[in-house]
Protein backbone atom coordinates (compact mmCIF):
# COMPACT_ATOMS: atom_id res chain seq x y z
CA UNK A 1 0.00 0.00 0.00
CA UNK A 2 1.07 3.58 -0.54
CA UNK A 3 1.36 5.66 2.59
CA UNK A 4 -1.77 7.66 1.87
CA UNK A 5 -3.81 4.52 1.16
CA UNK A 6 -2.58 3.05 4.44
CA UNK A 7 -3.56 6.15 6.41
CA UNK A 8 -6.98 6.44 4.83
CA UNK A 9 -7.65 2.74 5.36
CA UNK A 10 -6.62 2.94 9.01
CA UNK A 11 -8.79 6.02 9.56
CA UNK A 12 -11.79 4.10 8.21
CA UNK A 13 -11.02 0.81 9.96
CA UNK A 14 -10.26 -0.95 6.68
CA UNK A 15 -7.53 -3.49 6.09
CA UNK A 16 -3.96 -2.21 6.21
CA UNK A 17 -0.64 -3.82 5.31
CA UNK A 18 1.02 -2.29 8.35
CA UNK A 19 0.18 0.29 10.99
CA UNK A 20 0.68 3.83 9.69
CA UNK A 21 3.10 6.10 11.48
CA UNK A 22 2.98 9.89 11.90
CA UNK A 23 6.35 11.14 13.14
CA UNK A 24 5.46 14.78 14.05
CA UNK A 25 8.72 15.62 12.33
CA UNK A 26 8.07 19.14 10.99
CA UNK A 27 9.96 21.14 13.66
CA UNK A 28 13.19 19.32 12.79
CA UNK A 29 12.98 20.36 9.12
CA UNK A 30 14.34 23.92 9.10
CA UNK A 31 17.71 22.75 10.44
CA UNK A 32 18.00 20.29 7.57
CA UNK A 33 17.86 23.11 5.06
CA UNK A 34 20.01 25.53 7.04
CA UNK A 35 17.12 27.52 8.45
CA UNK A 36 15.63 28.13 11.86
CA UNK A 37 12.06 27.55 13.03
CA UNK A 38 11.13 31.20 13.24
CA UNK A 39 8.79 33.84 11.85
CA UNK A 40 10.63 34.18 8.54
CA UNK A 41 10.42 30.43 8.00
CA UNK A 42 6.63 30.41 8.36
CA UNK A 43 6.41 33.15 5.71
CA UNK A 44 8.60 31.31 3.21
CA UNK A 45 6.64 28.70 1.25
CA UNK A 46 9.71 27.52 -0.66
CA UNK A 47 11.57 26.91 2.60
CA UNK A 48 8.62 25.13 4.20
CA UNK A 49 8.24 22.92 1.14
CA UNK A 50 11.96 22.06 1.01
CA UNK A 51 11.97 21.38 4.71
CA UNK A 52 9.04 18.97 4.54
CA UNK A 53 10.42 17.14 1.53
CA UNK A 54 13.85 16.78 3.11
CA UNK A 55 12.22 15.38 6.23
CA UNK A 56 10.04 12.97 4.31
CA UNK A 57 13.09 11.61 2.51
CA UNK A 58 14.90 11.07 5.78
CA UNK A 59 12.15 9.93 8.13
CA UNK A 60 9.91 8.18 5.59
CA UNK A 61 6.73 8.18 7.65
CA UNK A 62 3.20 8.18 6.24
CA UNK A 63 2.24 11.84 6.40
CA UNK A 64 3.41 15.36 5.64
CA UNK A 65 1.99 17.70 8.25
CA UNK A 66 1.86 21.46 7.70
CA UNK A 67 1.39 23.80 10.63
CA UNK A 68 -1.42 26.33 10.33
CA UNK A 69 -1.19 27.47 13.97
CA UNK A 70 1.15 30.46 13.45
CA UNK A 71 -1.01 31.67 10.55
CA UNK A 72 -4.22 31.37 12.51
CA UNK A 73 -2.73 33.17 15.49
CA UNK A 74 -1.66 35.98 13.19
CA UNK A 75 -5.10 36.12 11.58
CA UNK A 76 -6.64 36.46 15.04
CA UNK A 77 -4.25 39.25 15.99
CA UNK A 78 -2.31 37.37 18.66
CA UNK A 79 0.77 39.16 19.99
CA UNK A 80 3.38 36.46 19.87
CA UNK A 81 6.93 36.04 21.04
CA UNK A 82 9.09 34.38 18.40
CA UNK A 83 11.99 32.46 19.94
CA UNK A 84 15.20 32.13 17.96
CA UNK A 85 14.41 28.58 16.92
CA UNK A 86 11.11 27.28 18.23
CA UNK A 87 7.34 27.57 17.96
CA UNK A 88 5.94 31.04 18.66
CA UNK A 89 4.72 31.64 22.19
CA UNK A 90 2.19 33.90 23.87
CA UNK A 91 3.41 37.46 24.23
CA UNK A 92 0.67 39.74 25.51
CA UNK A 93 -3.12 39.60 25.72
CA UNK A 94 -5.27 41.20 23.03
CA UNK A 95 -8.70 40.13 24.26
CA UNK A 96 -10.13 40.94 27.67
CA UNK A 97 -13.75 41.85 27.00
CA UNK A 98 -16.70 41.14 24.75
CA UNK A 99 -16.04 44.47 23.06
CA UNK A 100 -12.56 43.23 22.14
CA UNK A 101 -14.08 40.09 20.64
CA UNK A 102 -16.55 42.17 18.65
CA UNK A 103 -13.73 44.35 17.36
CA UNK A 104 -11.82 41.24 16.33
CA UNK A 105 -14.91 39.80 14.65
CA UNK A 106 -15.43 43.03 12.70
CA UNK A 107 -11.94 42.71 11.27
CA UNK A 108 -12.22 39.07 10.28
CA UNK A 109 -13.77 39.44 6.85
CA UNK A 110 -13.14 36.23 4.89
CA UNK A 111 -11.35 38.11 2.11
CA UNK A 112 -8.91 39.62 4.62
CA UNK A 113 -8.35 36.33 6.40
CA UNK A 114 -7.41 34.52 3.22
CA UNK A 115 -5.03 37.31 2.21
CA UNK A 116 -3.07 37.03 5.45
CA UNK A 117 0.60 36.59 4.55
CA UNK A 118 1.06 33.49 6.74
CA UNK A 119 -2.10 31.91 5.32
CA UNK A 120 -0.94 32.63 1.78
CA UNK A 121 2.48 31.12 2.50
CA UNK A 122 0.95 27.96 3.91
CA UNK A 123 -1.53 27.63 1.05
CA UNK A 124 1.36 27.92 -1.41
CA UNK A 125 3.26 25.30 0.59
CA UNK A 126 0.24 22.98 0.59
CA UNK A 127 -0.03 23.23 -3.21
CA UNK A 128 3.69 22.74 -3.72
CA UNK A 129 3.92 19.73 -1.41
CA UNK A 130 0.85 18.16 -2.99
CA UNK A 131 2.38 18.61 -6.43
CA UNK A 132 5.44 16.66 -5.29
CA UNK A 133 3.86 13.89 -3.23
CA UNK A 134 0.67 13.49 -5.26
CA UNK A 135 -1.36 10.64 -3.83
CA UNK A 136 1.59 8.74 -2.37
CA UNK A 137 1.66 10.27 1.10
CA UNK A 138 -1.15 11.76 3.19
CA UNK A 139 -1.09 15.54 3.52
CA UNK A 140 -2.27 16.97 6.84
CA UNK A 141 -2.87 20.60 7.78
CA UNK A 142 -2.88 21.06 11.52
CA UNK A 143 -3.83 23.95 13.76
CA UNK A 144 -4.57 24.73 17.39
CA UNK A 145 -8.04 24.15 18.78
CA UNK A 146 -10.29 26.86 20.18
CA UNK A 147 -8.91 26.95 23.72
CA UNK A 148 -5.27 26.97 22.64
CA UNK A 149 -6.03 29.91 20.38
CA UNK A 150 -8.16 31.67 22.98
CA UNK A 151 -5.24 31.32 25.41
CA UNK A 152 -2.99 33.01 22.86
CA UNK A 153 -5.43 35.92 22.73
CA UNK A 154 -6.37 36.26 26.40
CA UNK A 155 -3.44 34.73 28.23
CA UNK A 156 -3.93 31.32 29.77
CA UNK A 157 -4.56 32.45 33.34
CA UNK A 158 -7.19 34.95 32.29
CA UNK A 159 -8.84 32.35 30.06
CA UNK A 160 -8.88 29.84 32.91
CA UNK A 161 -10.56 32.32 35.26
CA UNK A 162 -12.96 33.36 32.53
CA UNK A 163 -14.24 29.80 32.11
CA UNK A 164 -15.87 30.23 35.52
CA UNK A 165 -16.44 33.99 35.70
CA UNK A 166 -16.77 35.37 32.17
CA UNK A 167 -18.48 32.54 30.38
CA UNK A 168 -20.14 34.73 27.76
CA UNK A 169 -16.74 36.06 26.73
CA UNK A 170 -15.27 32.57 26.37
CA UNK A 171 -18.29 31.30 24.42
CA UNK A 172 -18.22 34.25 22.04
CA UNK A 173 -14.48 34.03 21.49
CA UNK A 174 -14.48 30.28 20.92
CA UNK A 175 -17.38 30.61 18.49
CA UNK A 176 -15.46 33.24 16.54
CA UNK A 177 -12.30 31.13 16.48
CA UNK A 178 -14.16 28.00 15.36
CA UNK A 179 -15.89 29.98 12.62
CA UNK A 180 -12.55 31.31 11.40
CA UNK A 181 -11.04 27.82 11.34
CA UNK A 182 -14.00 26.43 9.43
CA UNK A 183 -13.87 29.32 6.97
CA UNK A 184 -10.25 28.55 6.10
CA UNK A 185 -10.68 24.79 5.80
CA UNK A 186 -12.00 24.53 2.20
CA UNK A 187 -9.06 26.58 0.90
CA UNK A 188 -6.59 24.07 2.29
CA UNK A 189 -8.57 21.09 1.03
CA UNK A 190 -8.69 22.71 -2.41
CA UNK A 191 -4.93 23.15 -2.16
CA UNK A 192 -4.49 19.43 -1.51
CA UNK A 193 -4.94 18.67 2.19
CA UNK A 194 -6.25 15.17 2.92
CA UNK A 195 -6.44 15.53 6.69
CA UNK A 196 -7.49 18.56 8.73
CA UNK A 197 -6.56 18.40 12.39
CA UNK A 198 -6.68 20.34 15.63
CA UNK A 199 -4.76 19.99 18.87
CA UNK A 200 -6.12 21.60 22.01
CA UNK A 201 -4.17 21.02 25.20
CA UNK A 202 -5.63 24.04 26.98
CA UNK A 203 -9.07 22.44 27.09
CA UNK A 204 -7.67 19.12 28.31
CA UNK A 205 -7.99 17.89 31.90
CA UNK A 206 -4.44 19.17 32.43
CA UNK A 207 -6.18 22.57 32.67
CA UNK A 208 -9.97 22.43 32.96
CA UNK A 209 -12.49 20.05 34.46
CA UNK A 210 -14.49 17.57 32.37
CA UNK A 211 -17.59 19.61 33.16
CA UNK A 212 -16.14 22.88 31.90
CA UNK A 213 -14.75 21.01 28.89
CA UNK A 214 -18.21 19.73 28.03
CA UNK A 215 -19.83 23.10 28.53
CA UNK A 216 -17.30 25.50 27.06
CA UNK A 217 -14.82 23.70 24.80
CA UNK A 218 -16.52 20.65 23.32
CA UNK A 219 -19.27 22.57 21.46
CA UNK A 220 -16.66 24.63 19.60
CA UNK A 221 -14.23 21.78 19.03
CA UNK A 222 -17.18 19.93 17.56
CA UNK A 223 -18.11 22.97 15.47
CA UNK A 224 -14.59 23.03 14.06
CA UNK A 225 -14.40 19.30 13.37
CA UNK A 226 -17.85 19.18 11.79
CA UNK A 227 -16.92 22.16 9.63
CA UNK A 228 -13.75 20.34 8.58
CA UNK A 229 -15.74 17.20 7.81
CA UNK A 230 -17.98 19.11 5.44
CA UNK A 231 -14.95 19.67 3.20
CA UNK A 232 -14.63 15.91 2.74
CA UNK A 233 -11.28 15.75 4.52
CA UNK A 234 -10.39 13.16 7.13
CA UNK A 235 -10.46 14.90 10.52
CA UNK A 236 -8.18 14.39 13.49
CA UNK A 237 -8.59 15.77 17.03
CA UNK A 238 -5.83 15.80 19.65
CA UNK A 239 -7.08 16.59 23.18
CA UNK A 240 -3.53 16.95 24.43
CA UNK A 241 -2.99 16.10 28.09
CA UNK A 242 -4.31 13.53 30.60
CA UNK A 243 -7.36 12.72 28.49
CA UNK A 244 -8.91 9.84 30.46
CA UNK A 245 -11.36 12.08 32.40
CA UNK A 246 -12.87 13.30 29.10
CA UNK A 247 -12.51 10.11 27.10
CA UNK A 248 -16.29 9.69 27.22
CA UNK A 249 -16.74 13.09 25.56
CA UNK A 250 -14.04 13.39 22.89
CA UNK A 251 -15.87 11.14 20.43
CA UNK A 252 -18.71 13.66 20.32
CA UNK A 253 -16.53 15.91 18.16
CA UNK A 254 -17.08 13.40 15.37
CA UNK A 255 -13.39 13.38 14.44
CA UNK A 256 -12.36 10.41 12.30
CA UNK A 257 -9.12 10.04 14.25
CA UNK A 258 -8.78 10.68 17.98
CA UNK A 259 -5.14 11.32 18.71
CA UNK A 260 -4.16 10.90 22.36
CA UNK A 261 -1.13 11.79 24.41
CA UNK A 262 1.05 8.97 25.69
CA UNK A 263 -0.84 9.22 28.98
CA UNK A 264 -3.65 7.26 27.33
CA UNK A 265 -2.91 3.62 26.57
CA UNK A 266 -3.36 3.30 22.84
CA UNK A 267 -4.68 -0.25 23.10
CA UNK A 268 -7.32 0.82 25.62
CA UNK A 269 -8.37 3.75 23.43
CA UNK A 270 -8.55 1.46 20.42
CA UNK A 271 -10.92 -0.89 22.24
CA UNK A 272 -13.08 1.97 23.52
CA UNK A 273 -13.49 3.50 20.06
CA UNK A 274 -13.33 0.32 17.97
CA UNK A 275 -14.86 0.78 14.53
CA UNK A 276 -16.25 4.21 15.47
CA UNK A 277 -13.07 6.28 15.50
CA UNK A 278 -9.50 5.47 14.65
CA UNK A 279 -7.02 6.31 17.41
CA UNK A 280 -3.48 7.66 17.28
CA UNK A 281 -0.63 8.28 19.70
CA UNK A 282 1.20 6.01 22.09
CA UNK A 283 4.83 7.12 21.79
CA UNK A 284 6.34 8.99 24.73
CA UNK A 285 7.86 12.17 23.25
CA UNK A 286 10.14 12.92 26.18
CA UNK A 287 11.41 9.68 27.68
CA UNK A 288 11.42 7.80 24.41
CA UNK A 289 12.15 10.34 21.68
CA UNK A 290 13.98 13.12 23.52
CA UNK A 291 15.88 11.29 26.24
CA UNK A 292 15.83 7.81 24.76
CA UNK A 293 18.00 5.95 22.28
CA UNK A 294 17.42 3.33 19.59
CA UNK A 295 16.97 0.54 22.15
CA UNK A 296 14.48 2.47 24.28
CA UNK A 297 12.44 3.66 21.31
CA UNK A 298 12.32 0.21 19.76
CA UNK A 299 11.16 -1.29 23.05
CA UNK A 300 8.52 1.43 23.42
CA UNK A 301 7.11 0.75 19.94
CA UNK A 302 7.26 -3.01 20.39
CA UNK A 303 5.29 -2.77 23.62
CA UNK A 304 2.67 -0.44 22.11
CA UNK A 305 2.06 -2.67 19.10
CA UNK A 306 2.11 -5.88 21.12
CA UNK A 307 -0.80 -4.65 23.23
CA UNK A 308 -3.00 -3.60 20.30
CA UNK A 309 -5.99 -5.81 19.57
CA UNK A 310 -6.54 -4.62 15.99
CA UNK A 311 -4.09 -3.82 13.22
CA UNK A 312 -6.39 -1.22 11.70
CA UNK A 313 -8.08 1.81 13.27
CA UNK A 314 -4.78 2.93 14.74
CA UNK A 315 -1.85 5.21 13.93
CA UNK A 316 1.42 5.23 15.85
CA UNK A 317 2.39 8.79 16.70
CA UNK A 318 4.33 10.70 19.40
CA UNK A 319 1.95 11.71 22.19
CA UNK A 320 2.47 15.41 21.57
CA UNK A 321 3.99 17.89 19.16
CA UNK A 322 7.77 17.78 19.13
CA UNK A 323 10.37 20.48 19.53
CA UNK A 324 13.21 20.94 17.04
CA UNK A 325 15.84 19.38 19.30
CA UNK A 326 14.57 15.79 18.94
CA UNK A 327 17.27 13.79 17.09
CA UNK A 328 16.07 12.75 13.64
CA UNK A 329 17.64 9.34 14.12
CA UNK A 330 15.13 8.76 16.91
CA UNK A 331 12.26 9.50 14.55
CA UNK A 332 13.76 7.14 11.99
CA UNK A 333 13.96 4.44 14.63
CA UNK A 334 10.33 5.02 15.56
CA UNK A 335 9.26 4.59 11.92
CA UNK A 336 11.40 1.51 11.32
CA UNK A 337 10.26 -0.16 14.53
CA UNK A 338 6.60 0.52 13.75
CA UNK A 339 6.99 -1.13 10.35
CA UNK A 340 9.02 -3.99 11.79
CA UNK A 341 6.54 -4.89 14.52
CA UNK A 342 3.29 -4.20 12.65
CA UNK A 343 4.05 -5.82 9.32
CA UNK A 344 3.41 -9.36 10.48
CA UNK A 345 0.72 -8.48 12.95
CA UNK A 346 -2.53 -10.35 12.36
Amino acid sequence: MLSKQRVMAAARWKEVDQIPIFANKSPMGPKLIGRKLNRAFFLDDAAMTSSEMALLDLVDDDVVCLNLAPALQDVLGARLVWPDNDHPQFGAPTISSLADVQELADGLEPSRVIQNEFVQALLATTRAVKKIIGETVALEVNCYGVFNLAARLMGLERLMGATLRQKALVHRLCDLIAGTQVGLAPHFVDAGADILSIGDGMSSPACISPRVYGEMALPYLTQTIQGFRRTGAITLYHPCGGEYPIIDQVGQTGADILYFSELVDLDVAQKIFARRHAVAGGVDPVHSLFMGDERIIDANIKQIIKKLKYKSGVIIQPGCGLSPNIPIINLQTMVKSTRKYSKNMQ
Partner: protein
Amino acid sequence: MAKIECLHYEAEAPVSPGGQDYPRALDLPPDAGRMGLEGKESLFQAMAKAVVDMDEDSSARLSEEAVRRRYDAFEAIDQGLTKGMEQAGRLFEEEEYFVPELLLCADAMDAGVEVLKPHIKKVDEEAKCRIVLGVISGDTHDIGKNLVKLMLNSAGFEVIDLGRDVDPEIFIDRAQEAGARIIMISSLMTTTMEGMLDVVKILKKRGLRDQFKVAVGGGPVSQAFADRIGADAYSPNANHAVRLAARLSVELAGDGTGELAGNL
Protein backbone atom coordinates in the same frame (compact mmCIF):
# COMPACT_ATOMS: atom_id res chain seq x y z
CA MET B 1 -28.00 26.01 44.08
CA ALA B 2 -27.06 25.45 47.71
CA LYS B 3 -26.82 28.38 50.07
CA ILE B 4 -24.21 28.58 52.77
CA GLU B 5 -24.92 30.79 55.70
CA CYS B 6 -21.92 32.67 56.96
CA LEU B 7 -21.98 35.47 59.47
CA HIS B 8 -25.64 36.30 58.83
CA TYR B 9 -25.21 36.78 55.09
CA GLU B 10 -25.59 34.25 52.37
CA ALA B 11 -23.15 33.30 49.69
CA GLU B 12 -24.00 31.19 46.69
CA ALA B 13 -22.01 28.01 46.53
CA PRO B 14 -20.57 27.39 43.07
CA VAL B 15 -21.03 24.04 41.41
CA SER B 16 -18.08 21.71 41.32
CA PRO B 17 -16.47 20.48 38.09
CA GLY B 18 -18.28 17.19 38.69
CA GLY B 19 -21.63 18.93 38.74
CA GLN B 20 -22.32 18.43 42.43
CA ASP B 21 -22.00 21.00 45.18
CA TYR B 22 -18.40 21.44 46.14
CA PRO B 23 -17.32 19.12 48.93
CA ARG B 24 -17.39 20.76 52.31
CA ALA B 25 -13.79 21.60 52.95
CA LEU B 26 -14.01 21.96 56.68
CA ASP B 27 -17.33 21.18 58.26
CA LEU B 28 -18.78 24.09 60.11
CA PRO B 29 -20.71 23.35 63.28
CA PRO B 30 -24.29 22.63 62.23
CA ASP B 31 -25.50 25.67 64.10
CA ALA B 32 -22.65 27.92 63.04
CA GLY B 33 -24.94 30.26 61.17
CA ARG B 34 -27.31 30.64 64.08
CA MET B 35 -24.37 31.04 66.42
CA GLY B 36 -22.93 33.76 64.22
CA LEU B 37 -19.58 31.95 64.22
CA GLU B 38 -18.91 33.09 67.73
CA GLY B 39 -15.76 31.10 68.32
CA LYS B 40 -12.41 31.82 66.77
CA GLU B 41 -12.14 28.33 65.32
CA SER B 42 -15.54 28.60 63.70
CA LEU B 43 -14.58 31.87 62.08
CA PHE B 44 -11.30 30.44 60.82
CA GLN B 45 -13.15 27.42 59.44
CA ALA B 46 -15.54 29.73 57.63
CA MET B 47 -12.58 31.64 56.20
CA ALA B 48 -11.07 28.39 54.95
CA LYS B 49 -14.37 27.44 53.42
CA ALA B 50 -14.68 30.79 51.68
CA VAL B 51 -11.31 30.11 50.02
CA VAL B 52 -12.31 26.59 48.98
CA ASP B 53 -15.60 27.95 47.67
CA MET B 54 -13.72 30.59 45.63
CA ASP B 55 -15.77 33.26 47.37
CA GLU B 56 -13.77 36.50 47.47
CA ASP B 57 -16.49 38.55 49.14
CA SER B 58 -16.93 36.08 52.00
CA SER B 59 -13.20 35.76 52.43
CA ALA B 60 -12.81 39.53 52.74
CA ARG B 61 -15.81 39.97 55.03
CA LEU B 62 -14.78 37.12 57.31
CA SER B 63 -11.28 38.55 57.45
CA GLU B 64 -12.76 41.92 58.40
CA GLU B 65 -14.66 40.13 61.13
CA ALA B 66 -11.39 38.60 62.40
CA VAL B 67 -9.87 42.08 62.51
CA ARG B 68 -12.93 43.48 64.30
CA ARG B 69 -12.63 40.77 66.94
CA ARG B 70 -8.94 41.62 67.33
CA TYR B 71 -7.80 38.10 66.46
CA ASP B 72 -4.15 37.81 65.54
CA ALA B 73 -4.02 38.54 61.80
CA PHE B 74 -1.20 36.10 61.16
CA GLU B 75 -3.13 33.36 62.95
CA ALA B 76 -6.23 34.19 60.87
CA ILE B 77 -4.22 33.76 57.69
CA ASP B 78 -2.42 30.68 58.93
CA GLN B 79 -5.38 28.87 60.49
CA GLY B 80 -8.11 30.20 58.21
CA LEU B 81 -7.17 31.24 54.68
CA THR B 82 -4.12 29.01 54.37
CA LYS B 83 -6.04 25.95 55.52
CA GLY B 84 -8.53 26.67 52.76
CA MET B 85 -5.76 26.91 50.18
CA GLU B 86 -4.26 23.67 51.43
CA GLN B 87 -7.63 22.01 50.96
CA ALA B 88 -7.90 23.52 47.47
CA GLY B 89 -4.47 22.09 46.71
CA ARG B 90 -5.57 18.65 47.83
CA LEU B 91 -8.69 18.87 45.68
CA PHE B 92 -6.45 19.88 42.76
CA GLU B 93 -4.25 16.87 43.31
CA GLU B 94 -7.33 14.63 43.49
CA GLU B 95 -8.61 16.14 40.19
CA GLU B 96 -11.69 17.51 41.89
CA TYR B 97 -10.41 21.01 41.21
CA PHE B 98 -8.61 22.10 38.06
CA VAL B 99 -6.58 25.17 37.11
CA PRO B 100 -9.51 27.65 36.99
CA GLU B 101 -10.80 26.60 40.41
CA LEU B 102 -7.32 26.80 41.94
CA LEU B 103 -6.78 30.28 40.52
CA LEU B 104 -10.10 31.50 41.89
CA CYS B 105 -9.33 29.97 45.31
CA ALA B 106 -6.10 31.97 45.24
CA ASP B 107 -8.08 35.12 44.40
CA ALA B 108 -10.33 34.44 47.40
CA MET B 109 -7.32 33.93 49.63
CA ASP B 110 -5.75 37.15 48.36
CA ALA B 111 -8.95 39.05 49.12
CA GLY B 112 -8.70 37.95 52.75
CA VAL B 113 -4.96 38.51 52.99
CA GLU B 114 -5.38 42.07 51.70
CA VAL B 115 -7.69 42.79 54.64
CA LEU B 116 -5.47 41.10 57.21
CA LYS B 117 -2.02 42.14 55.99
CA PRO B 118 -1.98 45.64 57.53
CA HIS B 119 -2.74 44.08 60.91
CA ILE B 120 0.05 41.50 60.94
CA LYS B 121 2.48 42.09 63.74
CA LYS B 122 6.17 42.16 62.94
CA VAL B 123 7.30 39.00 61.23
CA ASP B 124 10.79 37.64 61.66
CA GLU B 125 11.84 37.97 58.01
CA GLU B 126 15.06 36.06 58.60
CA ALA B 127 13.11 33.04 59.77
CA LYS B 128 11.10 32.70 56.55
CA CYS B 129 12.24 30.13 54.05
CA ARG B 130 12.97 31.82 50.74
CA ILE B 131 12.65 30.18 47.36
CA VAL B 132 13.73 31.50 43.99
CA LEU B 133 11.31 30.41 41.29
CA GLY B 134 11.16 30.95 37.53
CA VAL B 135 10.68 29.58 34.04
CA ILE B 136 13.94 28.77 32.29
CA SER B 137 15.24 30.87 29.40
CA GLY B 138 13.54 30.46 26.04
CA ASP B 139 10.24 29.49 27.60
CA THR B 140 7.36 31.86 28.27
CA HIS B 141 4.84 29.29 29.51
CA ASP B 142 4.34 30.32 33.09
CA ILE B 143 0.99 29.11 34.35
CA GLY B 144 2.53 26.08 36.05
CA LYS B 145 5.13 28.28 37.69
CA ASN B 146 2.40 30.68 38.83
CA LEU B 147 0.41 27.83 40.38
CA VAL B 148 3.49 26.67 42.24
CA LYS B 149 4.08 30.21 43.45
CA LEU B 150 0.59 30.66 44.81
CA MET B 151 0.69 27.31 46.60
CA LEU B 152 4.11 28.07 48.10
CA ASN B 153 3.01 31.53 49.16
CA SER B 154 -0.09 30.19 50.80
CA ALA B 155 2.03 27.66 52.68
CA GLY B 156 4.13 30.48 54.12
CA PHE B 157 7.19 30.32 51.92
CA GLU B 158 8.66 33.56 50.67
CA VAL B 159 8.85 33.23 46.90
CA ILE B 160 11.10 35.39 44.79
CA ASP B 161 9.42 35.09 41.40
CA LEU B 162 11.86 35.69 38.57
CA GLY B 163 9.12 35.35 35.96
CA ARG B 164 9.57 33.58 32.66
CA ASP B 165 12.39 33.27 30.13
CA VAL B 166 15.01 33.49 32.91
CA ASP B 167 18.70 33.03 32.18
CA PRO B 168 20.33 30.21 34.22
CA GLU B 169 22.87 32.63 35.73
CA ILE B 170 20.04 34.83 37.01
CA PHE B 171 18.57 32.01 39.08
CA ILE B 172 21.83 31.72 40.98
CA ASP B 173 22.60 35.44 41.24
CA ARG B 174 19.16 36.25 42.61
CA ALA B 175 19.21 33.31 45.02
CA GLN B 176 22.53 34.53 46.40
CA GLU B 177 21.31 38.11 46.67
CA ALA B 178 18.11 37.09 48.46
CA GLY B 179 19.66 34.49 50.72
CA ALA B 180 17.42 31.83 49.19
CA ARG B 181 18.78 28.31 49.18
CA ILE B 182 16.06 26.60 47.17
CA ILE B 183 15.91 27.18 43.42
CA MET B 184 12.80 25.96 41.62
CA ILE B 185 12.84 25.89 37.82
CA SER B 186 9.98 25.22 35.40
CA SER B 187 9.97 24.36 31.70
CA LEU B 188 7.25 23.25 29.32
CA MET B 189 9.38 22.37 26.31
CA THR B 190 12.09 19.88 25.52
CA THR B 191 14.01 22.66 23.80
CA THR B 192 14.32 24.61 27.03
CA MET B 193 14.65 21.74 29.51
CA GLU B 194 18.39 21.60 28.96
CA GLY B 195 18.62 25.10 30.45
CA MET B 196 17.84 23.50 33.80
CA LEU B 197 21.00 21.49 33.44
CA ASP B 198 22.89 24.74 32.92
CA VAL B 199 21.76 25.97 36.35
CA VAL B 200 23.22 22.86 37.96
CA LYS B 201 26.41 23.14 35.89
CA ILE B 202 26.92 26.81 36.80
CA LEU B 203 26.38 26.07 40.48
CA LYS B 204 29.10 23.42 40.25
CA LYS B 205 31.40 25.72 38.29
CA ARG B 206 31.06 28.41 40.93
CA GLY B 207 31.65 25.90 43.73
CA LEU B 208 28.16 26.53 45.09
CA ARG B 209 26.43 23.22 44.38
CA ASP B 210 26.26 22.12 48.02
CA GLN B 211 24.74 25.39 49.13
CA PHE B 212 21.54 25.17 47.08
CA LYS B 213 18.75 22.72 46.50
CA VAL B 214 17.56 22.65 42.90
CA ALA B 215 14.04 21.42 42.12
CA VAL B 216 12.57 21.10 38.62
CA GLY B 217 9.09 20.69 37.17
CA GLY B 218 6.89 21.31 34.12
CA GLY B 219 5.01 19.35 31.46
CA PRO B 220 7.80 17.25 29.90
CA VAL B 221 9.97 17.13 33.03
CA SER B 222 10.16 13.92 35.04
CA GLN B 223 12.05 12.34 37.90
CA ALA B 224 14.25 10.59 35.33
CA PHE B 225 15.16 13.94 33.80
CA ALA B 226 15.80 15.47 37.22
CA ASP B 227 18.12 12.56 38.00
CA ARG B 228 19.87 12.94 34.66
CA ILE B 229 20.72 16.60 35.17
CA GLY B 230 21.63 16.16 38.83
CA ALA B 231 18.75 18.18 40.28
CA ASP B 232 17.88 17.52 43.90
CA ALA B 233 14.18 17.02 43.33
CA TYR B 234 11.29 16.93 40.90
CA SER B 235 7.69 17.95 41.43
CA PRO B 236 4.85 16.70 39.22
CA ASN B 237 2.39 19.41 40.28
CA ALA B 238 1.87 22.58 42.29
CA ASN B 239 0.59 20.96 45.44
CA HIS B 240 3.42 18.47 45.52
CA ALA B 241 5.83 21.38 45.14
CA VAL B 242 4.81 22.60 48.60
CA ARG B 243 5.63 19.27 50.23
CA LEU B 244 8.83 19.18 48.24
CA ALA B 245 9.85 22.65 49.38
CA ALA B 246 9.13 21.63 52.95
CA ARG B 247 11.30 18.56 52.60
CA LEU B 248 14.14 20.46 51.00
CA SER B 249 14.05 23.15 53.66
CA VAL B 250 14.13 20.49 56.37
CA GLU B 251 17.14 18.95 54.64
CA LEU B 252 18.78 22.36 54.56
CA ALA B 253 17.96 22.87 58.22
CA GLY B 254 19.67 19.56 58.85
CA ASP B 255 22.94 20.99 57.62
CA GLY B 256 22.91 23.47 60.48
CA THR B 257 21.67 26.52 58.66
CA GLY B 258 18.41 26.72 60.56
CA GLU B 259 16.16 27.02 57.49
CA LEU B 260 12.46 26.65 58.26
CA ALA B 261 9.85 24.77 56.36
CA GLY B 262 7.29 27.47 55.72
CA ASN B 263 4.23 26.85 57.83
CA LEU B 264 4.31 23.12 57.35
